[in-house]
């Protein structure tokens, strides 16, 4: 099962953290720091897999992908396949992000992740449910997220003024 999903920047700042087993805030921070200390010591052009037993305990592996200033990290146990998880990170997630955040992924900056915090969580919830990968098709995830957005918007009587992070940044 998937134990945790994290997104952090290259300075170790956490941008998204989701743990599928409950952990105290302090423990979460400890793990994030632990992961970062391993990640930042990795050279370029090495494998994307790390044995995470010293951080997460018995039977835990870590797959990460470095995009621009961000690390995307999945921590999981032996019931998952490393290469497949890597594909989730480097293919599915970005394509979903790119489409939902409505921009080309290279330009998805750290702040967009945070600014669309609840949306990113929604995407992840569609993909990983209770620690298991339930959906791997980016179009399916997209569909679900869109539907949620639509319904939320409809159910919400308050009119919303769309305000994009990029719009704000371009000011």
């Amino acid at each position, binding site marked *: *099962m998937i134990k945790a999903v994290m997104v952090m920047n290259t300075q170790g*700042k*956490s941008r*998204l*953290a989701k743990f599928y087993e*409950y952990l105290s*805030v302090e423990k*979460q*921070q400890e793990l994030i720091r632990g992961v970062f200390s391993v990640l930042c010591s990795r*050279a370029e052009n*090495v*494998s*994307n*897999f790390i*044995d995470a037993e*010293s951080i997460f305990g018995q039977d835990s592996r870590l797959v990460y992908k470095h995009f621009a200033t961000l690390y995307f990290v999945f921590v999981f146990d032996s019931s998952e*396949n*490393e*290469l*497949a998880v*890597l*594909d989730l990170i480097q*293919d599915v997630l970005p394509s979903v992000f790119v489409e*939902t955040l*409505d921009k080309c992924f290279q330009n998805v900056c*750290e*702040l967009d992740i*945070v600014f*669309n*915090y*609840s*949306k990113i*969580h*929604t995407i992840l*919830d569609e993909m990983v*449910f*209770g*620690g*298991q*990968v*339930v*959906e*791997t*098709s980016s179009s*399916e995830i997209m569909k*679900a997220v*869109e539907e*949620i*957005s*639509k*319904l*939320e918007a409809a*159910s*919400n009587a308050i009119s*919303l003024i*769309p*305000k*994009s*992070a990029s719009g*704000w940044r371009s000011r």
Partner: protein
Amino acid sequence: MGSQGGFYQSKEFLDLVKSIGEARSKAEEDRIVLNEIETLKRRISEPDIPKRKMKEYIIRLVYIEMLGHDASFGYIHAVKMTHDDSLLVKRTGYLAVTLFLNEDHDLIILIVNTIQKDLKSDNYLVVCAALNAVCKLINEETIPAVLPQVMELLAHPKEAVRKKAIMALHRFYQKSPSSVSHLVSNFRKRLCDNDPGVMGATLCPLFELIARDVNSYKDLVISFVSILKQVAERRLSKAYDYHQMPAPFIQIKLLKILALLGSGDKQASENMYTVVGDIFRKCDSSSNIGNAVLYECICCVSSIYPNPKLLESAADVISRFLKSDSHNLKYMGIDALGRLIKISPEIAEQHQLAVIDCLEDPDDTLKRKTFELLYKMTKSTNVEVIVDRMIDYMISINDNHYKTEIASRCVELAEQFAPSNQWFIQTMNRVFEHAGDLVNIKVAHNLMRLIAEGFGEDDDNADTKLRSSAVESYLRILGEPKLPSVFLQVICWVLGEYGTADGMFSASDITGKLCDVAEAYSNDETVKAYATTALMKIYAFEIAAWRKVDMLPECQSLMEELLASHSTDLQQRAYELQAVIGLDAHAVACIMPSDASCEDIEVDRDLSFLNDYIQEAIEKGAQPYIPESERSGMLNISNFRNQDHHEASSHGLRFEAYELPKPAVQSRIPQTLIASTEIVPVPEPMYPRESYQTTMPSIPSDAGSAELKLRLEGVQKKWGRSTYTPATSTSNSTSQKTVNGTSQGDGASTVSSMRETYDSRKPQVEVSHEKQKLAASLFGGSSKTEKRPATGHKAAKASSHVVEKSHVPKSSMEVASEKAAPAQQPPDLLDLGEPTATSTALQLDPFKQLEGLLDATEVASAVNGAPAASRSPDIMALYADTAAGIHNKNDADLLSGLSNPSVTNMPGTTAMPQVTQSSSKGPNPKDSLEKDALVRQMGVNPSSQNPNLFKDLLG
């Protein structure tokens, strides 16, 4: 869609995110966040906040908590939001609570109701949100509250809901298998769901179920195979394709399941061959996901009943992986190779070079994986190279977790495959040198044992050579700075035991080195203790060989320091050393026989050798010993203890007169030591024991006896504060006297004098002539007896001795101790040696064999033959056990009379258990006895941190 859709955020939040993003330091970030927390605390409790605002506040709280700050003040608001009617607000509320709360949080109770309601909602998005919360927030107790609704949802028209309901059920199963065990069949049913997505999701719980209990799911093999076949043949809709692969994630899960089901099952495996072969052929190896499926195929092939054709395909894929430029694929290749060599070891050979490349690769992950592979393929032919490599790598890394792992692997491989002793010792030395503090202490004991025992062959020459080379290498290694404690312990032990054995090095060489060690690592009491004992051995060997002993000045100053040490253990060792040096060659040879670490030690638990002495004392007017339980005015032990404590600490201010001690006894207590009485703190009776457990680097017998016997508190109490070490025992006896002075007068004096006899040979300084004689009779007499097990043991003499079986099962010991406390006993200590009763008992006793093994008459010498260090606990054990024994006998006497064969013999065991035990165990007592003795001598002083030593060494 609009990029922000329903996910509106305010400018304020943007500013927060931005300022945190731009914060230069953690401190700055913290300041910003704390500010934000203040703002939120204020705002969030304002009345009538618009929902949209509230939603944003909650998101901000989530963000703050992710940054590691406490947002608990807002939890209740998140809970409140889940009650909201608006989907947007409700979903946000659910998101927040799943991130904030755990299943045991107090607020959960407020959510369960909402979840129940939402699970029945018409809006499937509400249902999904609730299901999401169910996974995270429902615990064993609340499962029944939502289970019916979740079960209904398994048939929901929306496949997204069905999928999530299955996962929720899976989660329930993970949290509490029993609560949903009757519903597990639903997973099987959902396997036939007409939506492939739902079917795929079902594979997750099924995988787990099958992993736990393969046999109940063998019937599904055919179904899984046909599903896999259909998936591989692209029967699913195009929507499930991923990088031109048909539903690869489903394929992977299915292959994992098949690997479980086919493991060791030829019939099941045969069903799988075709489809796995097909996938091997069809799989596109150019994409990541294709390789993931291929890798999974290899895992499957290596797990199921082997099929040569499939193994061949697997080997091909592996070589492709290994030749790839991608580190990821190399990693998978190495991993797959590790799986496959279990079945076909020859495959590794064709990839030797690739493996070596991976070993040299700068990528740490890959390197570790390769070491794992090497570990799996180690044989006696390659062990030297592999372990060598592993150690080199171990030295190069800093990660303690992995260092520990690799060190233990090195040890394991070396122990298993060592081509020669020489190599083994050198390898161990390297491991200890570089990861000494990380390896299990057990490894050190094993090494010491190996050096002591040799390789079990009767080639003494080889053993001697081995030891000489060990000594030589250790002397060299000692030159290096900062050696780990465990390693130093080994070194000290070996130098002490064998440093001068081959005559290559003089005693002054070795003792000089040992003193250096004690000095250089003066903070490490364990090492110092080892060094002291080693010094004692060296001197003892010298004395025994009639050589003149000149103590080096540094050694003398070390001893002076240790004599005043705060550690009672070190102090004791120093006194012992001093005592041993004062003895003549003959006595020393008995106390410290050279190269006798593998000899057995026997212990006379009844202290029968003291009988004459006690008799004499009583004739001179000493009062017999009165067991504690017999003493008047003592209601219970704790009472006694308190009083004891009180009196001990206040003995300077007592107004009632002490009873006059009998002169005979008085004279036995060396004046100097009496003087020190006041200094010795007697804080509370438990103290000495605790110190043995924790601070004091103690002794094998101690570890054992501590474990086994220290529970006999009440029993030991009969002897006063028996946990004192000999170094302080004089003070002990005097303080005892003060205690007893009020209550029972001379009863305890006898005890003290008895203890004196034990200690008398150590405080050599003012040993009376009488004592020397006693010592000579104790140890000299015993020296006449052979060290070997006597064939015909003298019943009369042996009768009063009881061979200590230090392994007396704990439980029975406890039984004994439990019984001991309340039992009423005859006050006469001498009772213990009552020959008539015991000797008859012995004749019939099933444990006679034990007696035969270890002639009890030489117990005393054996005790002393053991490295002196182990003496004190032994003595304590003696006390404890004798007490138990006496009591036990008396107890049993009451029950069944003296004729019962088993009654008298085993101290610390009750009659019945003992008989059964002995008859069922047959030769075991002998084995364990020998092992025990070995252990005692072997690890002269294993640290007390390793109470498991016995267990470890004895299996």
